[in-house]
């Protein structure tokens, strides 16, 4: 008899009536075969596994994670409300103890969406994990430390951006090397802002890395770091485009490998991200992940066309990954030394491209390097759409000085902005002032 050792909640929302465009990878058909496989395997009948209805994220929920320009309503579709709402529902089920863990098998994805949203990047408009994490922090204050392990094949530059300055959110991304794949970022030297140095860990893997390399990274880097950090909540951004059959990437993972990864990580919440091999990978990977979360036997889950010989990892890749793993673990262990020399304000400028919508953004950030709290920051953002905004983020646990600084930036922004945004996390206040 098939049984689950853990109670696992499944939020399945395939959005069968939503697509970016009829031939876009993010299309109506994407989760159809996954649903077929999950139903045919009888996964939902396994005692302990239960399907729940998705929820709807509100504008307020989204405001905790994003400055949407010009406004939330014009940047998202209802499908985003549901996919973010599905994640929130997954978190709610776990935190209220209804289930031990949950999988938000939702679309569209979110991990390329940064704090400022002018449009869609990498098929993402809003960061569904970030919206969920901020909902969790607001509604379950006992959750202080959160780890997000992003196993999508693409670097989760959006999630990295949202938590760049956050010392309580550990973001680990394992992805195909940015020199060979969109979005071209995610190198080990991107390790977080001054007050959160080492809280972002990027592990770029060479093309054709197989389960062996991925699981090595899990065993030798991710698990030791997680054990060390002792998070209150573990999230897996479960992109499935590392699969050997994925049409837009070059990795060699299998469904069995994904299941083992989740078995090892034992996340509280899994969130589907990318993965566009909709017939050959997703049905098997998702079945494997659900079974692994539930603590059920996944050893027979296998792709019909799997040929382990064809995807065997080159020994040179194995060597490379071993070296890289050692370096990343060292980086984590010596992270105290990564903090830059203290100056009250630190600035950085970036150009951000929204590939899905063809928008360019120039961003200038001013960060207060505070020693009493994570530090307030403001983002001056001008996009090719003509919108120029200022966004101010007063972080969780802000000190009085940072709070005052944030308030005064909001009240006297200087410059000519279309609008000024304020995120006051402790007050749960998200304001927009049209100028």
């Amino acid at each position: 008899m098939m049984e689950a050792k853990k109670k696992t909640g499944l939020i399945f929302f395939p959005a069968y009536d939503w697509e970016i465009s009829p031939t876009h990878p993010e299309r109506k058909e994407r989760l159809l075969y996954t649903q077929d496989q999950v139903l045919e395997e009888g996964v939902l009948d396994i005692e302990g596994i239960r399907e729940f209805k998705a929820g709807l994220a509100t504008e307020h929920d989204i405001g905790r994670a994003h400055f949407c320009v010009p406004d939330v309503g014009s940047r998202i579709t209802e499908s985003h409300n549901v996919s973010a709402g599905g994640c929130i529902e997954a978190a709610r089920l776990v935190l209220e103890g209804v289930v031990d863990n949950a999988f938000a098998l939702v679309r569209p994805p979110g991990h390329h969406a940064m704090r400022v949203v002018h449009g869609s990047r990498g098929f993402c408009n809003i960061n569904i994990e970030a919206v969920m994490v901020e909902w969790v922090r607001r509604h379950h204050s006992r959750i202080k430390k959160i780890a997000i392990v992003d196993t999508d094949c693409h670097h989760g530059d959006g999630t990295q951006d949202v938590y760049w300055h956050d010392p309580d959110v550990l973001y680990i991304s394992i992805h195909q090397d940015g020199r060979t794949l969109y979005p071209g970022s995610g190198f080990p030297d991107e390790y977080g802002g001054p007050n959160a140095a080492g809280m972002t860990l990027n592990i770029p893997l060479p093309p054709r890395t197989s389960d062996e390399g991925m699981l090595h990274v899990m065993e030798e880097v991710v698990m030791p770091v997680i054990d060390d950090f002792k998070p209150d909540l573990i999230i897996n951004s479960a992109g499935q485009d590392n699969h050997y059959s994925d049409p837009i990437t070059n990795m060699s993972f299998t469904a069995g490998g994904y299941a083992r990864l989740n078995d090892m990580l034992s996340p509280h919440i899994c969130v589907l991200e990318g993965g566009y091999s909709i017939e050959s990978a997703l049905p098997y990977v998702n079945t494997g992940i659900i079974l692994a979360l539930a603590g059920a036997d996944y050893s027979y889950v296998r792709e019909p066309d799997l040929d382990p010989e064809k995807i065997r990892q080159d020994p040179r890749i194995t060597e490379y990954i071993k070296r890289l793993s050692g370096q990343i673990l060292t980086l984590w262990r010596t992270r105290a030394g990564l903090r830059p020399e203290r100056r009250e304000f630190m600035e950085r400028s970036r150009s951000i491209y929204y590939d899905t919508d063809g928008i360019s953004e120039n961003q200038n950030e001013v960060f207060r390097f505070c020693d009493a709290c994570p530090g307030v920051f403001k983002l001056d953002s001008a996009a090719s759409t003509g919108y120029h905004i200022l966004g101010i983020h007063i972080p969780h646990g802000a000190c009085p000085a940072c709070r005052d600084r944030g308030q005064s930036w909001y009240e006297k922004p200087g410059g000519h902005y279309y609008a000024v945004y304020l995120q006051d996390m402790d007050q749960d206040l998200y304001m927009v002032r049209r100028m």
Partner: protein
Amino acid sequence: MILGIDIGGTHTDAVCLDGRGIQATAKAATGEDLVDSILEVVHRLGIDYTALSRVVLSTTLSTNAIVEKKYAPTGMIVSAGPGIDPRGYFLTDAFLLVKGAMDHRGREYVPLDPEQVKAAAGTLKAKGIHGLGVVSKFSVRNPAHETAMAALLEKDFRYLSMGHTMSGSLNFPRRMRTTYFNTAVMPVQERFVESVQKALTKLGIHAPLFFLKADGGTFASSAADRLPVETILSGPAASMMGALALNSHTKGAAFVFDVGGTTTDMGILVNGLPILEPGGVDIGGVKTLVRGLKVMSVGAGGDSCICLEEGALRVGPHRSGPPACMGGNSPTPMDAFTALGESTPGDARKALEALAPLAGQRGIAVDELCREIISVMAENIRQKAIAFVDEVNSHPVYTIFEMLHPEIVKPERAILIGGPARLLKPFMEESLGMECEVPEHFMVANALGAALARTTAQITLMADTQMRRIVCPELHMEKEAPSTLSIEDLKSIGIRALHDHAHILGISDEIEINVIEEQSFNMVRGFNTVGRNMRVKIQTTPGILPLWREQ
């Protein structure tokens, strides 16, 4: 004239009706031999047998056979391929696994090995097994392996079922079990139909015989021979359909409570139709693909035991024998009704005797205690009813449209049937805060439900224009799909097929067909649309025969 017979665990009820209304009703005790019980109740009706146009039976025959495992040893040959280990779902050691695998689109990637299949059959035959089920994973997408196994072995087994003909829905573990149970009860059903037919013929009844199914519809006995598993749980279906026939409203949502001795079975009617269990019904704790009504049982009935627990009055959920007023040892809600002076078959003195000590312990008068008992019982039912509605409304949806426009079921009335219905009514009205209707003839609601239920069938069509294939598992039909096939074309093919194969499905008279689900996806590979993947479910409208509504 239609004759409806409901063979319950204790009573067999019969009702005879025509377009003008109920012509006769009768009741008899259910004995060991169900055929005798049928004959007895038919005899008591005292009707003109030659006027009958149809006889409908609702029986516990297959339900009991399955729950009590009273069936001949049955074999299963299963092909699965990778996925969840199918052996975890095998019910007996007569389930044998063979090579062969299909994927979700019905593409074969491991062929069947005929020699291995024959060897498995040999093993089963050596055990003296005469009934065989053949099932493969994703057979509803491509039944080739099941069909091939059946072709190889049809001469070797007297009873044979193929998984894809049970239901067009996906769910391999349920398909295995449904096929197993179906094959197992085929001989039971066959013997029963044979003796019922013989007995009816002897009486001069030549009207066609129908059976009530779990979904609240009926089908001809020829179809029941092939799919006897569909007749499981027809008891609750009979009461829901009876309530539907007797209820004066057809719009809005209403609870149905069938109050029995041990339990109260509840269901919900929405706009004149009962709600179905989405994945299929459970029998004896095993999940099947059998389409059936969504019902929930509450451990609250006329015979529920009553006790004091830490000062609080508890009613149910168990029954520990008959009510005191009927010769039992402990007080029950039926005793409370009796003690309140309601007309029941019980002995009021015995009821009072049983209740007095409890009233003493509580320091209240007996009649106050009685009202409290019945209020607690009504409250128990109310709580389960709320949970039931929540469950119905929490059903996941997969489109934004349904997410933003949820169809919330909110019952506004209740229909009470079953023995204690009339007595319970004022208490239920108070507890639920809604109008409760106890219809006339509520005592024979089940037989009436059986008599009046329409014939039903459902088929599933799946078209994959890239693979040029249309499959309709329930009709065992495969067709070539033209590359230009549209969803409208697929629906027309389905509707025509349903008409053409009505005899196979056992449906007749005045069928109305409607499409209950349709999905169409462009299949995009690279940046090209390579085909369309379309799914359609078509059913004959369930409900009550129009002749009754026209009264």
